[in-house]
C-alpha cells in the first residue's frame, strides 16, 4: 500500500520549495500515478482559486477607491470654480455699494439710517392693566428703552410664546429690537409679516421701520418704493420719508 502523500508535500512541490532531486522525483511519480496526479491537480486548483479570490476582493476595493478618488477630484475642481465664482461674487457684493456710491455721488446709507432710526414709543406703558399683570413685559420694555436690544428681544421672544392678546405688539417691538441689534434680515422678515396682515394695527410704523431696514442694507429701489407710499398716504413719519427721498434722489 502506498504511503499517502501529505498536503504539505504537495504544496511544497507546487511552490517549487522541494530540493531539486525531490522535486524531480515527485514529478516522476505524478506521471505514473493518476490518482496522485488528480490529487495534486485539485490542490493546485484550490490554491489558485484562493489566490484569485484575493485578487477579486482587492479589485473591488480598488474600484471603489478609484471611484471615490475621482469623485473627490471632481468635487475639488468644482470647488475651485466655486471658489473663483465666490471671490468674484464677494468682490461684487462688497464692492457694489462702493461702486454704486461712486456712480451715485456717495450716498451714505448707514448715515441716513442712523439719522432716522429712533425707538418707537413704548405704548405698553400706557396699558397699565396689562403691564401690571406682566412683569416680564415691563422688564423687556425697560431693556428696550435703554436700547439693550439683545436682552429686550430675549424677553419679548419668550413672551411671544404665551401672550396672545399682545402678540401683534410684541412682534412689532421684536422687529425693532432685531433692527437695533443689527439683525437686518430677520427684522425685515418681521416687518414684512406685519405688512402682509391686513388687520395689523402696527402696519404703518412697521412700514417705516422696514424702509429703514432696506436703507441700511443699501436696497435703495425697494426703500424708495415704500418711502413714496408713506409720502403719498401721509402715514407714520411721512415728513422724514419725504426728506429721505430727496437725499436719495
Amino acid at each position, binding site marked *: 500500500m502506498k504511503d499517502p502523500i501529505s498536503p504539505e508535500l504537495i504544496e511544497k512541490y507546487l511552490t517549487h520549495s522541494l530540493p531539486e532531486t525531490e522535486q524531480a522525483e515527485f514529478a516522476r511519480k505524478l506521471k505514473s500515478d493518476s490518482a496522485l496526479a488528480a490529487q495534486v491537480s485539485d490542490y*493546485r486548483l484550490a490554491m489558485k482559486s484562493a489566490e484569485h479570490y484575493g485578487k477579486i476582493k482587492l479589485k473591488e476595493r480598488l474600484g471603489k477607491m478609484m471611484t471615490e478618488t475621482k469623485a473627490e477630484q471632481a468635487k475639488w475642481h468644482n470647488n475651485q470654480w466655486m471658489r473663483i465664482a465666490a471671490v468674484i461674487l464677494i468682490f461684487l457684493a462688497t464692492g457694489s455699494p462702493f461702486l454704486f456710491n461712486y456712480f451715485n455721488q456717495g450716498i451714505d446709507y448707514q448715515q441716513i439710517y442712523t439719522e432716522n432710526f429712533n425707538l418707537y414709543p413704548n405704548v405698553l406703558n400706557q396699558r397699565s392693566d396689562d403691564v401690571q399683570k406682566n412683569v416680564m413685559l415691563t422688564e423687556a420694555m425697560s431693556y428696550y428703552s435703554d436700547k439693550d436690544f439683545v436682552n429686550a428681544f430675549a424677553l419679548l421672544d419668550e413672551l411671544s410664546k404665551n401672550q396672545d392678546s399682545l402678540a401683534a405688539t410684541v412682534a412689532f417691538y421684536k422687529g425693532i429690537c432685531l433692527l437695533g441689534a443689527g439683525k437686518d434680515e430677520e427684522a425685515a422678515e418681521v416687518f414684512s409679516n406685519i405688512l402682509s396682515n391686513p388687520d395689523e394695527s402696527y402696519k404703518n410704523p412697521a412700514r417705516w421701520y422696514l424702509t429703514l431696514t432696506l436703507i441700511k442694507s443699501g436696497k435703495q429701489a425697494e426703500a424708495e418704493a415704500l418711502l413714496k407710499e408713506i409720502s403719498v398716504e401721509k402715514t407714520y413719519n411721512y415728513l422724514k420719508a419725504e426728506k429721505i427721498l430727496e437725499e436719495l434722489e
Partner: protein
Amino acid sequence: MTIFYSDKRITEALKSGNEEDTNKVFRYLYKTYFGMAVQFMKKNTGDESDAEDVFQEVMIGFYQSVRKGLYRGDSSVKTYLYSMIRNQWLIRLKDRKRNIAMDIQENVMKMQQTHPVENAAGELNSKVRTLLEKLSERCREVLTLYYFDNFAMSEIAQMAGYDNENSAKTQKYKCMQRLIALIAENPDLRSSLHELLLESNQ
C-alpha cells in the same frame, strides 16, 4: 493636502499588512500615476476606460510583486509601474487580437483582428466567488492572506487573532481540505476552473 510617499514608504506600507496604510498608498498611486496610464493608452489605441482596467490590474500586480519580494527597489516605482502598464496592455491586445500598429520605442507590432474574448474573465470571477463563498469567512481570510497576500503563517496568526502559528496552520489545513472537497464534489466546476484558471495561464 496630498501627502508625498517615497518609493520606500510605498513598499513598506504594502508589506505592513495594515489595510488603512495599504489603502492610502493605493490612493496615492492612483492620484500620482493614473495619468501616466491614460497617456500611454491614448497613444496606443486605448482610452480612459482601458486605462482604468489596466491600472487596476497593475496595482494588483504591483501589490503582489511587493508582497512576494519580486519588486526589490532596483528601479523606481514609477518605472516599474510603467513597464507593468505596457506589458499589461500588450497582453490585453494579444487577447483581443486587434489589428493595430503599436509604436513603443523598441517594439512595433501588427496583429490580425478577430473577436475579443472578455467574457472568460467574468465567468472565472463568478465561479471562483461562488466556490470560495461556500467557505466560512475565517477560511476565506486565512486562505487569501496566505495565497494572495503572501503573508507568512506567523503573520497571519497575529493578524487573524489565532493563539499561535500552529493554530493558524491547522486552520489553513482544514480550510484547504474543505476547499478541495468542494472542488472534487463538482466535476463540472472543476473542469471549468481548470480551463479558465490553469490552462489560460500557461
